[in-house]
């Protein structure tokens, strides 16, 4: 139960953060990605604020031996750079650049502009299931 409440609080704070930051709006995201146009660099500040806060927070929390309501912290990041990582990141960048929605804003858009957001979100889920089938067949 405490695990669920933690997830509820984290999701709400995340959603409010996305909204205030402007990340929820594909028009603003595409304005950030359009360096050659009327460039709006605001969203670089989202990454700055998010990374610095998480960097400090993860280190403070990491002094504990375990999380509050779970048995263990995630494994240390693995540093393997392979074709799957590079190709996956490139495909994601292409899809993000075409529409202006990454996964978090794809969720919040469901309440802000539900008709196109539903088409996009459903396609994201289908794309995920497609990868699952590919991975299963290639034995990964």
């Amino acid at each position, binding site marked *: 139960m405490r695990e*669920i409440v933690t*997830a509820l609080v*984290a999701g*709400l*704070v*995340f*959603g*409010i*953060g*996305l*909204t205030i*930051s402007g990340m929820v709006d594909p028009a*603003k995201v595409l304005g950030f*990605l359009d360096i*050659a146009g009327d460039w*709006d660099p605001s*969203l670089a*500040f*989202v990454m*700055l*604020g*998010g*990374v610095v*806060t*998480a*960097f400090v*927070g*993860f280190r403070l929390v990491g002094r504990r031996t375990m999380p509050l309501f779970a048995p263990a912290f*995630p494994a240390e990041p*693995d540093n393997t750079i392979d074709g799957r*990582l*590079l*190709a*996956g*990141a490139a*495909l*994601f*960048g*292409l*899809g993000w*650049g*075409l*529409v202006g*929605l*990454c*996964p*978090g804003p*794809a969720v*919040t858009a469901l309440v*802000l502009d539900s008709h*196109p957001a539903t088409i*996009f979100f459903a*396609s*994201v*889920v289908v*794309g*995920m*299931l497609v990868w*699952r089938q590919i*991975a299963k067949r290639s034995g990964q």
Partner: protein
Amino acid sequence: MAHFTPWASLFGGILIGLAAVILFAGNGRLAGVSGIIGGALGARGRELYWRLAFLLSLLLGPLAWTTISGSEPAIAITADRGILVVGGLLVGLGTQMGGGCTSGHGICGMARLSLRSIVAVGVFMVVAFATVFVSRHVVGG
């Protein structure tokens, strides 16, 4: 630069980072939205419930902010139906293949100084910038 909002974006980013710290401290989980959605597909029991709780709450974020601030955020999705489908498929496929998105690699992974995440962010940012350049200044306009 008419719509430059550095302070709002910085503050929003800090809240996103704080949300990641809350999930990490409480549940020992990383707040990567693509990983949370992907992990919910086919999951059962506790693995499913915390993910659904996070996603449902994420969905309520804009409504909560509307209540607090008194104004609803205006968003504009300009892509047509075909582009929405193609873009969505690529985002779903790419994030699962590459193991993360703007939150998982971009916030959590970078904050953990993961080399994989730093490389992934470099790749998806460059490709996204190039995609917008081509669609707005080469083929479109």
